[in-house]
């Protein structure tokens, strides 16, 4: 067995496989299918300072090799998370990372500060890239100033590992990546979903309740891979790659492109056990090609 351990800005992972926010619940939902301690980490549902009802139904549309969603950050707020959910997940033996969203830099910072107090949450992933809420979310992630203002505010309030999740819905993802690095991010993850749309030709209406949604799944992989490659070549901080990963081969492509770790999202819906299979597949690849550690292949592709 090869050495699968990776270190993301001080965060020790048993392997480079994490699960993506919004696709893996709080981890508990998948406990029947896999041993969660075999994952590098779990990034739980998007959490905001105040409770949010999210967008109306319908929130989902199937597409060719993917899906659109406009869930809109439905969650019961950070207080509920700390009081009700944290006790249920704190003993899960992997890195439990909270995905944080907000309406303003102050919102983000306060939410992060609350989570900073939870001993068993070693990192947060700042979502400055949600395409499905009117205020905040992606608005911050699409300009260097917006991104930098949120990350600076959170950096002051949050002492542990700070991962910033980037939006692909921008002209230059590397500019944003550099801006959040300068503002104090310990790592970046990308990509969030791509803005998309579906139309029901019989009803002659847009399918999703708010008209647009975020595209995820295998169909976005080439775009994600290109962006991860570009960002990894531009920043000093570690990069976590995601977007359409459904098997070990996909994951290895991201590692070769320069990602130190990867996240699996939509693929969990098709096969709830896919994440551990990917970790195993990475190990087999390393063994087969004589690599001793997964770190040897990170960014190996010119």
């Amino acid at each position: 067995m090869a050495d699968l351990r990776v270190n993301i800005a001080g965060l020790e992972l048993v392997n480079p496989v994490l699960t993506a926010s919004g696709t893996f619940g709080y981890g508990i939902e998948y406990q029947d299918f896999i041993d969660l301690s075999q994952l590098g980490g779990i990034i739980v549902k998007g959490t905001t300072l105040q409770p949010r009802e999210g967008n109306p139904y319908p929130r989902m549309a199937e597409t060719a090799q993917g899906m659109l969603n406009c869930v809109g950050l439905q969650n019961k707020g950070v207080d509920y998370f700390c009081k009700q959910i944290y006790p249920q997940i704190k003993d899960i033996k992997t890195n439990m990372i909270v995905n944080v969203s907000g309406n303003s830099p102050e919102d983000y910072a306060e939410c992060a500060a609350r989570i900073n107090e939870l001993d068993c949450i070693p990192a947060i992933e700042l979502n400055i890239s949600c395409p499905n809420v009117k205020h905040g979310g992606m608005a911050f992630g699409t300009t260097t100033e917006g991104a930098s203002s949120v990350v600076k505010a959170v950096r002051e309030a949050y002492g542990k590992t700070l991962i910033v999740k980037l939006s692909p819905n921008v002209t230059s993802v590397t500019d944003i990546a550099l801006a959040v690095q300068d503002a104090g991010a310990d790592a970046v993850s990308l990509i969030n979903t791509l803005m998309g749309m579906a139309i029901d030709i019989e009803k002659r209406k847009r399918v999703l309740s708010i008209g647009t949604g975020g595209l995820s799944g295998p169909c976005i992989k080439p775009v994600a891979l290109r962006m991860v490659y570009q960002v990894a070549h531009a920043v000093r901080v570690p990069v976590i790659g995601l977007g359409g990963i459904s098997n070990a081969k996909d994951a290895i492509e991201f590692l070769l492109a320069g990602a130190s770790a990867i996240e699996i999202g939509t693929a969990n819906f098709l096969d709830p056990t896919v994440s551990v299979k990917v970790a195993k597949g990475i190990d087999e690849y390393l063994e087969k090609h004589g690599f001793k550690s997964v770190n040897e292949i990170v960014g190996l592709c010119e």
Partner: protein
Amino acid sequence: MRKYVLDLQVTSVEQPGERYLLLDATNPAGPLPEMNPGQFAQLRIDDNKDTFLRRPISLHHVDYEKNEVSFLVQKVGKGTASLWQKRPGSTLNAILPLGRGFTMPTSAEQKFLLVGGGVGIAPLLFMGEAMLKMGVRPTFLLGARSKSDLIRLDAYRALGEVYVTTEDGSEGEKGFVTQHSVLQREKFDNISVCGPKPMMMAMACYAKQVGTKCEVSLENMMACGLGACLCCVEDTKDGNVCVCKEGPVFDVEKLKW
């Protein structure tokens, strides 16, 4: 209840009606897990480039001794049509059992009416079987557009009393299930409904009028089926809740209907 991803093996494929498919499957890996009526499975659709996600399908019949679980599927689109390619011996990958099923009787004296419309009759067979095991005879009220959409009646008749309506009057009483005379004649302690939304709403309305507890099974579009993605929500009196986890069966009192 513990959930499993199983590679079931199809044992029999029948077409009980023009647009309907009855798939029997077995679990070659071991005994079937415990399942409740009203719960469902997320079936993987194989060999279809136009579908991506799994499809939620109710548990239609479960026989633990024979290691057999069945699904009754109506052909509506590309995913359900793909299931027509299954043959005895085919693999049917299923995540099950999912969701919260129907409330079951707590004593043999309770009268339960099971109301189904179209392919919504599917979960009611399993429910009837489970009731009979508890010594409670179920009463079914099944509705369809016309005679050719009334499928597997014999299987229901083997469990209890079956009343039928068709919209064109080709079998049973003419009209909708809510107009059937049995509702005037008899009083029930509980009504369990699965079918098209307008039918479920009409039954819910009737139940309210006569003061009977009523549960309905919703069919919101699903992605994960596990309560992890929040795509399948229904706007209830408690806010947006996941149909795949808190449901698919809901007490109508919880809904904003």
